[in-house]
């Protein structure tokens, strides 16, 4: 047996194993450091640096020192800087590829610290530029308070009145042409004269036979006259209907200039009613930008609480990084399912200018459906320097696969603010020089739907304005803003993660509105008079033509009416021009019926 075994081989194996363990232990810090930096950079989209990492084997503990996470939107600033993160890792679950951390201590968390070198990565530059462009495009701007040039407006606008006048004129022209040609086909004076002459000849008939034949002819002529009169009456009906329609069009065309004046005034002018919510264009973009930034960070952090690939531990295949070629790792049901990664509690100490805020985050895992508990966070502090009260609470619930139910509430009271830009618009810059803020935020996410209600009350405020536009109205707004010492602001965010709206209202709207209403009203009256005059010049001539056209149509109506009268006259007088309605027979013979 011993001939088949090399004892020195066992020694070599043990030596190799020991070398492997010692080598790994010596390099573990460097390996962890590289892993954290690479994974963090991928997650954040900007450089993540780690000063050092320590690993203790007995008991197994990991410590990360000097973690710096670059703000992707400001590469020379750290979004978060952490002095030390220390965690004890359960060893036995690790053999089953489960990372279970009972307690994680995060000390010295700071926000917005400066960086010595840029933390931008090549891939993220283009994204940041795209984001900036998107924000600029979506930003609201206040309309100009100076009325625009009327000639320039009229040159660039298509007037509804001119279109309607043109339509009415075309209809009148068509009716004139049509009825002029139809008049030629209708019985006219000449035709009625011919009836008279024929009837006159019949009156000269002699004898009973002649009289009877004449009577027959007379009845035939009378039938013809009646037929002609009917045609004329029918034409009269058609004509009246057509004229009525044309008159309606002409009436619309006549009132169109006034509507154009109203429309253009509303479009290019700023009505006093429009000033009822000045805080929306003034402060809405800034709040929208903050909401966008918050959502952007939320999306970056989402893989921490939810796997992109559903891993509910109930079986099924999921693609993994292949060892050599393409391969899949199949998961089977676990008898006592535990998450692949779990931090039961993270204790954080945030270092702000005002002092330290302590908090905990419980149950951090990307496998909430297995763990069965949502992530909960609680932070709080009292009586800090420049912050009376701070409370932050939240839940991130992904315990039911495919369903999202997150909520976050924030209450901060007595937060001292200095030099905070409220509007970074180049045209309407507003800065809070100093003030004390009471802030309440309640945000929720359910699936893709998000909602947030922000309520802010600012006391002892001092606002500075940097308006590019000059004039009485901007000056009035600037004076009003500079005079405001306290105000309340409410913002509502509603929509989906990809598309949401931000509605802002504030009690400063009332003050701003009353300050500019009179000034804006005068400007708008000036604009309205200019528009009325300009549109009047363009439409007065065509409108006069329409009236003339209607007059021409009236003449056609009269002609048709006179022809009907002529026919009636022929029937009533039997061609003699009298007024008797009887039908006398030729020779004065009277029939007994």
């Amino acid at each position: 047996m011993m001939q088949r075994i090399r004892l020195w081989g066992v020694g070599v194996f043990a030596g190799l194993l020991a070398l492997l363990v010692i080598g790994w232990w010596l390099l573990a810090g460097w390996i962890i450091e590289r892993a954290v930096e690479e994974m963090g950079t991928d997650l954040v989209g900007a450089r993540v640096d780690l000063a050092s990492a320590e690993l203790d084997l007995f008991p197994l503990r990991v410590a990360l020192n000097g973690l710096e996470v670059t703000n992707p939107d400001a590469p020379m600033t750290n979004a978060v800087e952490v002095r030390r993160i220390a965690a004890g890792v359960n060893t036995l679950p690790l053999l089953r590829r489960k990372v279970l951390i009972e307690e994680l201590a995060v000390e010295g968390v700071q926000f917005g610290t400066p960086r010595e070198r840029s933390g931008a990565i090549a891939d993220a530059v283009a994204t940041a530029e795209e984001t900036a462009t998107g924000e600029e495009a979506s930003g609201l701007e206040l309309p100009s308070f100076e009325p625009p040039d009327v000639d320039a407006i009229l040159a660039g606008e298509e007037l509804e009145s001119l279109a309607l006048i043109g339509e009415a004129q075309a209809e009148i022209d068509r009716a004139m042409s049509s009825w002029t040609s139809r008049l030629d086909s209708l019985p006219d004076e000449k035709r009625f004269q011919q009836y008279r002459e024929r009837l006159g000849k019949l009156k000269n008939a002699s004898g009973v036979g002649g009289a009877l034949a004449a009577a027959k002819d007379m009845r035939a002529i009378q039938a013809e006259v009646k037929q002609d009169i009917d045609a004329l009456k029918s034409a009269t009906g058609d004509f009246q209907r057509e004229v009525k329609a044309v008159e309606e069009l002409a009436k619309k065309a006549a009132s169109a200039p006034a509507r154009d004046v109203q429309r253009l005034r509303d479009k290019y002018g700023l009505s006093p009613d429009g000033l009822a919510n000045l805080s929306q264009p003034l402060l809405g973009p800034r709040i929208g930008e903050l909401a966008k930034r918050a959502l952007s960070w939320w999306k970056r952090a989402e893989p921490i609480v939810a796997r992109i690939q559903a891993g509910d531990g109930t079986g099924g295949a999921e693609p993994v990084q292949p060892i050599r070629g393409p391969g899949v790792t199949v998961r089977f049901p676990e008898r006592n399912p535990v998450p692949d990664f779990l931090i039961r509690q993270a204790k954080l100490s945030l270092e702000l200018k005002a002092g330290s805020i302590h908090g905990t985050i419980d149950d951090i895992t990307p496998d909430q459906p297995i763990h069965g508990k949502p992530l909960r966070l609680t932070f709080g502090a009292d009586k800090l320097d420049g912050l009376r009260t701070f409370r932050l609470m939240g839940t991130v619930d992904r315990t039911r696969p495919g369903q999202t139910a997150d909520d976050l509430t924030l209450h901060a009271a007595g937060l001292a603010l200095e030099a905070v830009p409220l509007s970074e618009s180049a045209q309407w810059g507003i800065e809070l020089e100093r003030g004390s803020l009471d802030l309440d935020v309640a945000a929720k996410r359910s699936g893709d739907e998000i909602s947030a209600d922000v309520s802010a009350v600012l006391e002892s405020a001092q606002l500075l304005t940097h308006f590019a536009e000059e004039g009485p109205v901007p000056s009035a707004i600037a004076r009003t803003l500079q005079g405001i010492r306290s105000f309340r602001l409410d913002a509502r965010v509603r929509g989906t993660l990809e598309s949401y709206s931000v509605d802002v209202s504030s009690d400063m709207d009332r003050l701003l509105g009353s300050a500019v209403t009179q000034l804006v009203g005068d400007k708008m009256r000036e604009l309205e008079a200019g528009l009325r005059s300009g549109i009047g010049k363009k439409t007065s001539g065509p409108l006069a033509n329409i009236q003339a056209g209607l007059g021409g149509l009236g003449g056609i109506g009269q002609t048709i009416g006179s022809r009907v009268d002529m026919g009636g006259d022929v029937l009533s007088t039997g061609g003699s021009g009298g007024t008797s309605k009887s039908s006398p027979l030729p020779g004065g013979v009277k029939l007994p019926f």
Partner: protein
Amino acid sequence: MGSLAKLLKVLNSETDPGQISLACCLGLVIGLTPLWSPHNLLVLLLVLMLRVNLSAFLLSFTLFSGVAYLIDPLFDWIGLSLLTASSLEGLWTSLYNTTTGRLEGFNNSITMGSLVVCLTLFPFLNLLFIRLITAYRERVLEWIRQTRLMKMLQASRFYHAYARVSDWTS
């Protein structure tokens, strides 16, 4: 060329065919299965502990590592078929719930496929290699030794010097 020379040297040596064959089969396992799998520690222990030919092992390991890249899709298919076979679900579930099973990472299709192929082929290949080596030594090597050229070479001083040095190194 160097590898071929090594192979010939091993084959032509007095080493037991069983030692060479076992070395080749262990090289097959460590070469075809993912290198950093825990079972390969056991293979390494066996290679060092048992009196197998180390040159043959290293040669076999190198050769089969190259082959592994080519037949990974086959391992993937075999592994996934086994892992998703409903009749074996109970077995895999039990194994999945053991520390050894999780540590081994058997639930990866390539690990499973390559390991099953290696373990299935191991006994057959071991016997085959022994027969091939024996046949080589009895027929091919004997025929070469009987050639005039070889006899002339063996009679030379150079060959004696080589044989002495070769004995020292082995």
